[in-house]
């Protein structure tokens, strides 16, 4: 027992948690006592004895759990073992519950954890749809309803979509570029463990007096600065989730820039790598802004600062500028990795090089640059400087161009291919093209100011969000999980169940989200618990479809869990793909490669006899492989 307590792990983590909480609590009480204040301050925006422990307890846990052991030992000048790989690899399920530094274990931890939060976010959504199935108040009170849509959005964005992409890339990206691991494995593990902490803080806000944070995921001031305690949970949770994102993005950037296998120049990187490079540039540049915005709200609440208090010289609208300066790029943080996944899958299953590879990569970079110049399109009716609207409209509309290039190039990839649709991954990739196009079109409509003036803050926006995030991001996530499932688990999932899941999801998505456009344009505002009776029928259809959509996700879970344990062995390369991760065993060995592969050509050289992407270690070393030039062949007509 004593040994168990000294070892990093759950026991020491629990002790750290308690000590961290006690430290924060004690600090607050002591400082208040010294200052002659009431020991407990329980105004709704106060509660320092709750919010300070909320910050210190997670750090206590992380210390105890072992997240900082190595760094501290190193900083203190104590002997460290640079080649200590005890935290690498997973030999039993227990290794997934440790501070593991293996990128493949971390990738799996990410995906499983985020899918868990996907379930929670989904249940919150279904509760809302139950309330909205009929006009009038049925199940939840208005105050609870506001908490539901706020937590739903926050869980989906910060704990599912953003991190699940980080998880998938964590697993496959080092393999794809021929690296033995990520650049900073310990930072990588820390990034992961920050995530469940953020999740618990968000969900924990339901227990706060006054209920969960309920100012929307946008948390506009001054609604948020005056909201009950739950809002502070949001402010703090975002810091942990944001820190996790930033650390991972830095890790990806350094890994991609410095750890590519010999021969992999920029134009030989698979598009998934390009996509994560672009996403990481957005994350490190933009995420500090949402962290800052939430700190400002937090300080307004806790310390009585007046950033957003107009009576004391604060500026209400500046919150929105800072928030959207992150949150517009964030929508591309939630989409670019998916673009990368789709390029991999379509090329593999159409047995053809990605059409216009270089333009595809440049389009990603174009989106990154433009992303920083469009934030205020969320504020066309917010009362900001009116001169800013037209320039922002132009950049917003222009961002549809690189997005369009991607769609057309995927279609171009299909032409003259050999399209295989036996894989559920490919089905989701194809369906993604269509549904995402609808979301892109509604985005352009929203970008046109006169239309936005009418439909802003209505169900039309809700429809747009869900077409791009469910029909877009989530479809790519499903595609990615199906595609790399055999690599990650070494086993094959059941394609028949995959098809059920696919068709249920596609039909459910369209039935649930298409009518939202109509009721929104006709006058139903968003974020309401009740609505005019004329919208009753459409809402009933939406709710029924949403429940069906939710139910069919159980098929997915069943398929994943059962196939992971009992599925037939997948083999190394079930999709006959070219990229490097498919040339190693499934699942890959602990250090990925016995010998670092040598990259000799583009990643998608399907159809060119003798062309190779990489030569794996141990293969005929000396033999010269002909360099394949990325040629521009005109399509035979």
């Amino acid at each position, binding site marked *: 027992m004593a040994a168990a307590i000294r070892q990093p792990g759950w026991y020491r983590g629990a002790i750290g948690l308690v000590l961290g909480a006690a430290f924060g609590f004690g600090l607050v009480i002591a400082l208040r006592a010294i200052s002659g204040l009431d020991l407990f301050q329980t105004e709704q925006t106060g509660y320092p004895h709750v919010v300070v422990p909320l910050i210190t307890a997670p750090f206590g846990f992380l210390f105890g759990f072992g997240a900082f052991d190595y760094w501290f030992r190193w900083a203190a000048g104590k002997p460290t073992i640079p080649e200590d790989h005890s935290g690498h690899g997973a030999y039993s399920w227990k290794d997934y519950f440790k501070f593991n530094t293996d990128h493949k274990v971390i990738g799996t931890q990410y995906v499983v954890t985020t899918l868990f939060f996907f379930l929670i976010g989904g249940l919150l959504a279904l509760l809302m749809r139950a309330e909205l199935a009929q006009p009038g108040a049925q199940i939840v009170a208005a105050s609870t*309803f*506001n908490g539901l849509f706020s937590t739903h959005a926050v869980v989906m964005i910060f704990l599912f979509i953003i991190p699940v992409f980080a998880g998938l890339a964590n697993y496959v990206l080092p393999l794809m570029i021929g690296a033995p691991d990520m650049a900073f494995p310990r930072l990588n593990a820390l990034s992961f463990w920050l995530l469940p902490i953020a999740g618990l803080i968000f969900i924990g806000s339901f227990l706060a007096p006054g209920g969960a944070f309920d*100012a*929307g995921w946008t948390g*506009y001031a001054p*609604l948020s600065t*005056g909201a009950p305690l739950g809002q502070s949970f949001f402010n703090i949770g975002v810091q942990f989730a944001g820190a996790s994102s930033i650390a991972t993005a830095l890790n990806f950037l350094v890994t991609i820039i410095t750890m590519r296998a010999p021969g992999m120049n920029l134009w030989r990187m698979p598009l998934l790598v390009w996509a994560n490079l672009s996403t990481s540039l957005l994350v490190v540049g933009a995420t500090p802004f949402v962290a800052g915005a939430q700190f400002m709200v937090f300080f307004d609440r806790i310390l009585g600062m007046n950033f957003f208090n*107009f*009576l004391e010289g604060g500026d*209400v*609208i500046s919150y929105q500028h800072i928030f959207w300066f992150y949150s517009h790029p964030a929508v591309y943080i939630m989409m670019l990795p998916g673009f990368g996944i789709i390029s991999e899958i379509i090329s593999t299953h*159409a*047995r*053809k*090089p990605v*059409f*216009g590879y270089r*333009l595809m990569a440049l389009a990603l970079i174009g989106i990154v640059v433009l992303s920083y110049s469009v934030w205020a399109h969320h504020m066309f*009716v*917010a*009362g900001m400087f009116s001169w800013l609207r037209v320039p922002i*409209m*132009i950049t917003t*509309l222009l961002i*549809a161009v690189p997005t369009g*290039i991607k769609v*057309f190039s995927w*279609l*171009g990839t*299909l*032409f*003259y*291919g*050999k*399209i295989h*649709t036996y894989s559920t991954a490919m089905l989701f990739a*194809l369906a993604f093209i*269509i549904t995402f*196009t609808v979301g892109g*079109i509604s985005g*352009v409509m929203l970008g*046109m100011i006169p*239309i936005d*003036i*009418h439909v802003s*803050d209505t169900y039309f926006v809700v429809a747009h969000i869900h077409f791009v995030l469910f029909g877009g991001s989530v479809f790519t996530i499903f595609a990615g999980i199906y595609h790399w499932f055999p690599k990650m688990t070494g086993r094959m999932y059941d394609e028949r169940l995959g098809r059920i899941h696919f068709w249920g999801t596609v039909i459910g998505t369209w039935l649930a989200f298409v009518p939202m456009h*109509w009721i929104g*344009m*006709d*006058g139903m*505002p968003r974020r*309401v*618990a*009740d609505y005019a009776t004329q919208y009753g029928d459409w809402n009933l259809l939406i709710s029924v479809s949403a429940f069906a959509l939710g139910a069919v996700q159980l098929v997915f879970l069943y398929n994943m869990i059962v196939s992971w344990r009992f599925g037939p062995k997948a083999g190394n390369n079930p999709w*006959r793909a070219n990229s490097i991760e498919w040339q190693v065993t499934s699942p890959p060995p602990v250090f990925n490669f016995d010998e670092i592969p040598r990259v000799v050509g583009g990643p998608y050289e*399907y159809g060119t006899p003798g062309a190779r992407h990489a030569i794996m270690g141990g293969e005929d070393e000396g033999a010269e492989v002909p360099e394949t030039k990325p040629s521009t*062949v*005109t*399509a*035979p007509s």
Partner: protein
Amino acid sequence: MVLAVLVLGVVQSVILLQFDWFGEAAATEAAPIDTMMDVTVVISSFIFAIVCVALGYALIKWRAKPGDESDGLPIHGNTKLEIIWTIIPVIIVLGLGGYSWAVLDDIEKTDENALHVNAYAQQFAWTFGYPEDGNKWSEGVLHVPVNRQVIFDLQAQDVIHSFWVPEWRIKKDAVPGLATDAVVTPDKEGTYQLVCAELCGIGHTTMRAYVIVESEEKYEAWLSKQTTEVPTSLLKTKDEYLEAEAKEQEESGGIEGSGVVEE
């Protein structure tokens, strides 16, 4: 393929144009916005048709036979095509942008003899002041004359709210500490609803008001019957607000311990 795109595009446009997307219109600002929506729907129909037809065509034509393990043609791209599908969308969106700008200018033109009405938003009710007529006050019901431009000066007392009458197509946030306005020219008599479109707290769902658009005579008659004036607590700017607050406290002998007013 081109034919299929045209047919599908036309069919979609025709079907989609049958709907009255934004519902009933009751302001002169509505017509250009509704037309703009129709134009956008037609353009979108063709873009969507291109994507659907291309995908469907490829799937029919180049689907692999079971067991076929060969690869597709090694085509890496086509510079001409890539330039085309970069330039044409640029032209389309810039066209839409210019069009939007023109419509925006059009709907935001203000008239010299427009009627000014103050709309006060607070959790969770709308009230209205008529500064041109003795600052008369109406709670929960907005009366405006038909066929005369109205400029609503929006003022939020606590958090952000948003002024929206769907039939007028115009929406603008009311922001604490900031003067914003919405310009509308109602052109159809009737009773409508003013909806708060920005999340403002627990009562957001029910934060509505009635809007009555009526003839000039009826409007004048209604206004002359109103007696209450806008309470000082709803006054306009931040300075006026602070002044009024100080005055109220002075009258009530100051709030204990506030330090704002000495005994």
